[in-house]
């Protein structure tokens, strides 16, 4: 099998591997951990579009996830809507949030856009605390039901796993379609040179706004899934730290790539749960790793940006390009 066939088959193999995990893993906690990986991957797919492809930074992505999570929780618990309807509402509200942030941010670039998104994220986390009648305030929102579609309820660890990774699969498909066709080139052009993109007739405003909206939508859906999987959400989940974690995953994964950020999302999520992953790892060691988790994220950002600015995807592309040339 040569490199090219391998590359063509790689996504298929990855998907197949992802699918059989619940059949091979009997530890329910480990399955839950892999489910969390999927939720983070979903956020990161959206962020990869916005940041990795279009070059628009967002330091407030956790806010969109929170918008989705609270919307879904409120709709299902307080309004009694079916889960699927709440899920759709979560996406809509998060996408609206993206629109509301994107429009005034259009003329902001670089540092100012970063600060605006950061400010928006912090403001939203304050809002989650203050909007107590809806969100439950600091104490959070509990008693969120399991996801269900019609008569089918996703209760077991494996069904939740499949639900989440199914959503990731659809998101990847959509994202791949966007990036491989006209909008994707417009996004990458925007990233490469805004002047050049304008000279090519790229609708800069349209691309920015739409990418923001799609990205926020995916984060919102991920939030709704989290709410359903865990059954409890609180403002402390959707903070600056979470936003930076997502950014770290995206940066480590690399620009102009979906596979890289997804892999990075899975890998960096697993850092938190090393003892679930490695049987027999002493609890103390796992806790030590856990206490250095954010150090790892921070250091990963710094090192990748300095030494491998195109991330894992960039390294992989360079290697495979080298292979093909030889």
């Amino acid at each position, binding site marked *: 099998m040569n490199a090219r066939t391998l590359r063509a088959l790689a996504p298929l193999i990855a998907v197949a591997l992802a699918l059989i995990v619940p059949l091979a893993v009997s530890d329910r906690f480990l399955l839950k951990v892999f489910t969390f990986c999927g939720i983070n991957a979903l956020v990161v797919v959206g962020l990869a579009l916005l940041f990795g492809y279009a070059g628009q930074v967002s330091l407030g992505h956790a806010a969109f996830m929170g918008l989705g999570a609270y919307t879904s929780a409120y709709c299902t618990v307080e309004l009694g809507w079916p889960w699927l309807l709440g899920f759709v509402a979560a996406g809509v509200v998060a996408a609206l949030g993206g629109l509301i942030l994107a429009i005034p941010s259009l003329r902001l670039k670089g540092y100012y856009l970063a600060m605006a998104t950061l400010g928006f994220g912090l403001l939203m986390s304050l809002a989650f605390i203050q909007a107590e009648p809806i969100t439950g305030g600091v104490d959070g929102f509990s008693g969120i039901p399991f996801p269900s579609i019609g008569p089918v309820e996703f209760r077991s660890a494996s069904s939740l796993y499949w639900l989440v990774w199914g959503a990731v699969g659809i998101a990847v498909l959509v994202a791949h379609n966007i990036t491989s066709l006209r909008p994707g080139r417009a996004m990458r052009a925007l990233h490469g040179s805004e*002047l050049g993109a304008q*000279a*090519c*007739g790229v609708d800069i405003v349209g691309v920015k706004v739409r990418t923001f909206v799609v990205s926020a939508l995916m984060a919102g859906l991920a939030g709704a899934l989290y709410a359903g999987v865990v059954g409890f959400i609180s403002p402390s989940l959707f903070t600056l730290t979470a936003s930076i974690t997502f950014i770290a995953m995206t940066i480590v994964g690399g620009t102009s790539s979906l596979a890289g950020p997804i892999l990075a999302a899975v890998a960096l999520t697993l850092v938190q749960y090393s003892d679930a992953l490695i049987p027999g790892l002493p609890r103390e060691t796992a806790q030590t790793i856990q206490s250095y988790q954010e150090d790892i994220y921070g250091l990963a950002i710094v090192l990748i940006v300095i030494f491998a600015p*195109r991330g894992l995807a960039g390294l992989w592309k360079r290697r495979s390009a080298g292979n093909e040339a030889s």
Partner: protein
Amino acid sequence: MTLLQVRNVTRRFGGLTAVDDVSFDVYEGTVKALIGPNGAGKSTLFNALTGFDRPDEGSVVFEGEELVGRKPREVVRVGLARTFQNTQLFEEMTAGENVMVGSQARQRRGFTTAMLRLPNAVAEDREAREDASRLLRLIGIEEWIDVPAADLPAGIRRLVEIARALATRPRLLLLDEPAAGLNATETRELVQTLFRVRDSGITVVIVEHDMGLVMEVSDEIVVLDRGAKIAEGPPRMIQKDPAVIAAYLGGEVDDDV
């Protein structure tokens, strides 16, 4: 036939008048050069023509349509494409992909059709791909098609940017110092490309410091000095124009090789 009418265009920055009441016409099927010493206002004028900057006064009419106040992307869609003095390629994209972006100006399919991978989005994509190969072949650099822009030699970068501009299907192509940074061989190739472009029916406006190139390719020349037009006419006349000679001798002649 007049393709582009520039009338009394003025652009000020604070107390400085960068472009001062400039008017000229560009005729269809010709090559027009804008020359002048450094700081004469050539690039500012270029930006004003293409929607990247808005002149304080004056009008720019392209085939009866007023361009002042339009966004760059609208100007491109009307049929004016440009390149940049500092090439604005998309460094992480290949030469082919760069040229494909040029097709965006005339394509319509957006996010939704792409998300669902509807047939017309795929068809558009294929069309852009084929067009990019065709243009690169036309310019004679098809062997660079899969090379990332960041890895291209300077001469090829200029040509890729021209191909990208051509992919927008322009009626008028505006080139900002296309020969800057090119060696003699590359400049020869550029000249050939310019003739090929002109012969395919595309009008060209060029800002250039390389006088040899300017004299060779242009049908008419506009000379700017300190923002104002000081001469206009065919190359032979311009070479002898006392005002032009004074401007170039008075200022610093900048060959910029």
